[in-house]
């Protein structure tokens, strides 16, 4: 202990303060510095601050972000979000552990190079399965790609997301081509950072006159990385999908002329483009897509953008651009032309309901906080989007930080709060960075601070980062976390509107809820209420992922049916597969079978079929997905994320999982289904908070619609061929003896027998599916 240098801890405490609520930021700083939490550092924190040993022990073991053991030099985070799960995240995790020869029960290889950890959801669902090594994301992985990924990582000099953070500065030339590069997390994960870098470098090289602009998420995640060209004088833009660095260079070289001949650019560009789009021979053209193309049309057609207005068109942190697009007009109006009461009325007229999941009427919440007579009130933006399979809030925070800030400022004005926080989950570093940058811009421009928009209205906003706990999306747990405690929910009432942060009345709304507010104030509540159904007004943003052709972020008017979303917008299940169900609402939601897909997107209608609106994750499942496995997946998630406070959630969900584990491994008994359902109903009725109350939903809805699959499992059969213990791999007579399977088998379960039919040794087989994927003859079958 004597060798421990406390300088860093001392400086951190000096910077962050000594109050008990600074515990999470202090722990985060210590972990960033040491890569784990050395005990000596924690003891030093207790010496220096008001943080007690009990608080530090409690908090540092509650949040999954914190590690108490040293980790490898690089951290591999394997995403276990829903989309990744259905696309084989377990296998990917196995592959890394197997390839790195990580001893069982450990998480780090012997050389201490890599630590493999499971993460709940990286929010890059359209790239599933996804992993992250440090800050580098790899998507669309398969078991056999793992060695390549590791090699790639070892041989690249990665500078994190640095490239993605470079900014195009300088004066805009109105005649210059504008090259827009999508820099949402998904795009970055798919390499748009590199694309951006290449474009910049190429332009520099040729001295090209073009504006490179980073834009937020375009929503078409299935096409990332996207590069869009806006050519002066043309009505439509050109969109290039799935661009890599090489193609990015080609795009620049083809479209941008060296400086000095900029005058001829408009004309030239037109000519070039005509050729590009028309010429099938051209390599570039294959990747150019046009909004007039049928699939793109279908993807965009049903959508209605309010929260995501001007999606993909402007630089997320460029305040000027936001203001040119009506930004902060709503706030000005809210301050100068409307009373707080009128604002509340407007939101009530709009019929806006909370977009975080439960759908509580926003206007009523505002009114309650407004009416509280306390001097001090707080406003909080709940950005702890944790549902696996949901990434709407991340996208809104990353791409429309000003819109969320504006909505929040309007809400603050309406309820009379002068201080507030963004609570953003730790897994969203880019969102944190963008909001921080946007807040700073707003302060400089007088949009936040002591006199908002020159009025007497004051508002201070700051960002607090979560530390890896799904439960902190629950409002009372979020408050506990903000106060530097373990994120444990408490019994309501009292509701936060009466007694919230530090016991003061507090308004907590979700990111998307705030993002809709400026539109409502600009266009009026009635215009908003004109969209949607009787009880569900306006639009809803969904993260569409899973077994679907066109995944992405979509915003649709309420009332659109599941079928329209899955089939028209998403293009249906991939070729050769049948759309079976859609999981809506994540771990709190349910699976809606394909036959009920005419159910509209509407709070009550979704509850009626056993799902919930939730925060908006929509994972499409096809005939290769096992519904029992899906139920187990979600239960494992909630079980893992349960805070552990109340009996029904802590133990009840565990016992449900035990039953599901037995069913999935062929040890189920006939009375298990009844016991499972009964327990599910008890957990649902008696759990203390929303997490426990809704955790049984995925189980109950699959029991309701896919009872036959449960029955099949009891008989030892998994109809979808997913449950490892119930399936076997076999090579049939179609085998051509090419040896590919044997060469690729990670466990040497297939002896090499050239020109002869191969066989699989069942005992060695880990059912990793590699052989089936590599077989050119389709000879590997699952039974």
């Amino acid at each position, binding site marked *: 202990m004597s060798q421990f240098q406390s300088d860093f801890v001392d400086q951190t405490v000096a910077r962050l303060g000594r109050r008990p609520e600074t515990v999470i930021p202090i722990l985060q700083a210590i972990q960033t510095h040491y890569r784990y939490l050395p005990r000596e550092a924690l003891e030093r924190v207790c010496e220096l601050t008001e943080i007690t040993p009990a608080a530090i022990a409690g908090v540092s073991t509650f949040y999954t972000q914190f590690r108490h053991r040293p980790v490898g030099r690089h951290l591999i985070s394997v995403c276990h979000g829903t989309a990744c799960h259905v696309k084989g995240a377990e296998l990917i995790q196995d592959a890394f552990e197997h390839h790195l020869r990580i001893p069982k029960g450990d998480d780090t290889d012997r050389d201490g190079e890599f630590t493999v950890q499971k993460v709940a959801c990286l929010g890059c669902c359209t790239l599933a399965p996804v992993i992250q090594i440090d800050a580098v994301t790899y998507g669309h992985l398969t078991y056999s790609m793992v060695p390549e990924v590791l090699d790639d990582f070892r041989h690249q000099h990665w500078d994190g997301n640095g490239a993605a953070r470079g900014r195009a500065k300088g004066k805009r030339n109105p005649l210059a081509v504008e090259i827009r590069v999508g820099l949402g997390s998904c795009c970055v994960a798919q390499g748009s950072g590199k694309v951006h870098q290449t474009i910049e470098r190429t332009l520099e090289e040729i001295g090209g006159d073009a504006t490179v602009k980073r834009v937020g998420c375009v929503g078409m995640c299935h096409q990332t990385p996207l590069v869009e060209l806006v050519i002066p004088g043309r009505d439509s833009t050109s969109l290039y999908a799935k661009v890599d660095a090489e193609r990015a260079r080609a795009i620049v070289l083809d479209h941008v002329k060296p400086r000095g001949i900029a005058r001829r650019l408009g004309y030239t560009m037109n000519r070039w483009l005509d050729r590009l789009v028309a010429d099938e021979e051209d390599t570039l053209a294959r990747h150019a897509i046009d909004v007039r193309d049928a699939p793109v049309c279908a993807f965009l057609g049903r959508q209605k953008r309010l929260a995501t207005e001007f999606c993909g068109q402007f630089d997320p942190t460029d305040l000027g651009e936001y203001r040119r697009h009506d930004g902060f007009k709503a706030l000005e109006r809210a301050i100068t032309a409307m009373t707080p009461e009128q604002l509340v009325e407007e939101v009530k007229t709009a019929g806006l309901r909370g977009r975080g999941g439960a759908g509580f009427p926003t206007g009523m919440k505002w009114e309650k906080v407004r009416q509280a007579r306390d001097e001090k009130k707080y406003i909080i933006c709940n950005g702890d989007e944790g549902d696996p399979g949901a990434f709407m809030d991340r996208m809104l925070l990353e791409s429309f930080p000003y819109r969320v800030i504006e909505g929040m400022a309007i809400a603050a004005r309406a309820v009379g709060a002068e201080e507030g926080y963004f609570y953003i989950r730790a897994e969203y570093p880019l969102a944190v960075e963008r909001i921080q940058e946007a807040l700073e811009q707003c302060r400089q421009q007088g949009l936040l601070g002591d006199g908002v928009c020159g009025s007497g209205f004051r508002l201070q906003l700051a960002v607090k980062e979560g530390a890896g706990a799904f439960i902190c999306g629950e409002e009372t747990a979020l408050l506990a976390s903000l106060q530097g405690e373990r994120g444990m929910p408490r019994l309501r009432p009292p509701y936060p509107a009466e007694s919230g942060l530090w016991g003061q009345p507090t308004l907590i709304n979700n990111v998307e809820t705030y993002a809709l507010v400026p539109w409502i104030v600009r266009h009026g509540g009635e215009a908003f209420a004109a969209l949607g159904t009787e009880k569900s007004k306006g639009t809803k943003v969904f993260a569409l992922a899973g077994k679907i052709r066109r995944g992405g972020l979509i915003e649709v008017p309420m009332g659109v049916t599941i079928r329209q979303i899955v089939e028209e917008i998403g293009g249906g299940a991939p070729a050769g597969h049948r759309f079976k169900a859609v999981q809506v609402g994540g771990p709190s939601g349910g699976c809606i079978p394909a036959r009920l897909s005419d159910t509209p997107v509407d709070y009550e209608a979704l509850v009626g079929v056993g799902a919930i609106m939730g925060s908006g994750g929509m994972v499409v499942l096809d005939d290769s997905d096992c519904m029992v496995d899906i139920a187990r997946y979600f239960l494992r998630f909630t079980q893992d994320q349960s805070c*552990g*406070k109340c009996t029904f959630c802590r133990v009840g969900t565990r016992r449900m999982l035990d039953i599901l584990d037995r069913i999935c491994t062929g040890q189920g008994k006939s009375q298990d289904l009844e016991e499972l359902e009964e327990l599910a109903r008890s957990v649902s009725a008696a759990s203390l908070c929303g997490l426990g109350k809704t955790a049984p939903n995925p189980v109950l809805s699959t029991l309701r619609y896919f009872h036959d699959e449960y029955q099949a499992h009891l008989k030892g059969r998994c109809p979808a061929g997913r449950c490892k213990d119930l399936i076997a791999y076999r090579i049939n007579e179609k085998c051509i003896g090419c040896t590919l399977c044997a060469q690729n088998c990670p466990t040497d379960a297939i002896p090499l027998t050239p020109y002869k039919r191969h066989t699989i040794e069942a005992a060695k087989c880990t059912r990793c599916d590699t052989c089936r994927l590599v077989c050119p003859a389709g000879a590997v079958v699952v039974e």
Partner: protein
Amino acid sequence: MPKLTIDQREVEVPPGATVLDAARQLGIDIPTLCFLEGYQASTSCLVCMVKIRNGAGGRLAPSCGTPAADGMVVESETEELFQIRRTALELLLSDHVGDCLAPCHFACPAHMDVPNMLRQISAEDLAAAIVTIKRDIALPAVLGRICPKPCEKGCRRSAADGAVAVCQLKRFAADADLASDEPYLPPYAPPTGIRVAIVGAGPTGLSAAYYLAQKGHACVVFDDQPQPGGRLRHEASEAELPREVLDAEIASLVRVGFEVRCGTRVGSTFPFAQLLKEFDAVLVACGAMVRDQAHGWGLPVGPRGLHVNKETFETGVRGVFAAGNAIRGKALAVRSVADGKEVAAAIDQFLSGQTINGPAKPFSSRIGRVYAEEMPQFLTCSSSLPREEPPSGEQPGYQLPQAIQQADRCLHCDCRALESCKLRRYAALYGADPARYPGQRHPFRQIVARSHVIYEPGKCINCGLCIQIAAAAGEPLGLSFVGRGFDVRVGVPFDRTMDEALSKVAAEVVAACPTAALEVRGKGEVGMRTAE
């Protein structure tokens, strides 16, 4: 003052009161585990669930943390709530890594409280030990010599370095008692005037007489042999069971006040019909010999002996009971001794006009199968000495120092809070089945390192009272929840000891713990050896 209705009864409570306060004001008993007056309701155990009827369909809410509101309509005693409370208890029990009663308790046919006896021997309190023994076993000196020791087969330590020498230690205590100037005489009730005839002075008959006599009933034990003892006298060799031990132990039993009429053969010298006339109840305990007589006595016969109701020992003829080998044919002597105790209880219930409900089955949580890795943890609170058999020869049996050493080997598998545990009390009350939700459980651990407070995380129900009490008392180190979800447990920061964590309020915390998660080391427990 808010006025509310609970189970259709109106109650007015002071502002700030909870639904639980209101219920208690009405005298309604709502079970609570995690709640303690004076501390913040943690609303975690959820066994205090009530239903708030206001609003569509109503909602379940923990009464301890729900503020009583004006106009509230509350239900507390419905089938639905009974079920939900029982489910909460069963879920807690499904992860309760602890035995209420030790495995040896269940292995012993007489269900003797073995660990308690061992602790009493450890504490050199032999007078207490014989009381413990004789509560369940009337003939311990005899059984201490001839019993095939099923308790030792059940002993958890048998899976490690050999079972605790329970039988020899019982014999040690019993021998010491017999050798004393005044052997133990149990308290007995004043005479009831009720007469019980017992046919057969074997282990069953003598035991039954011993326990019935304590109830104040006048017992006459008939036997056709010249001396009492039945099969004990002719099955065991003199070397195994010296007759002077048998005689001495029987003599000690008889002191409680019952008559033994030897040389009296029921059936011939004393007609069975006359027994029925002269006595208020008859116990047939004449072993296998009964087969020849049963028909003449009008008693039903089964494959092994007399046919009886297994729970109540009733033969079907009113007032006639049968037990021991008379119903079993061939059973261990300890089984017969146990039968004697159980049938005595049945007969006593019959005689006092109660329903005969058979031997009481105390509620017990059971760990079940133990994993090899857990064994060191079980060994934590016991002596590490190996099992040693007593010397034979001149002075057979243990002498005190060796007996203490051997008794110190007990793992104390039984619960330190058997009587005070609220979880056990309510589980019994609600008929909770501890095996309802089988599944993965946490490993057994008991943390005793350098501490007089023993912490068993497996028994913790996460009520957090210890954390609250320590924080309120300003403990410099204190306690906190560690981890999350299913694995969350109470822990001491920075891996320090419980004594350090609870420097001021250890006694208060132990008293507040609703289970035995935090307990002080019991009298007679040893071992400061750490298993950490």
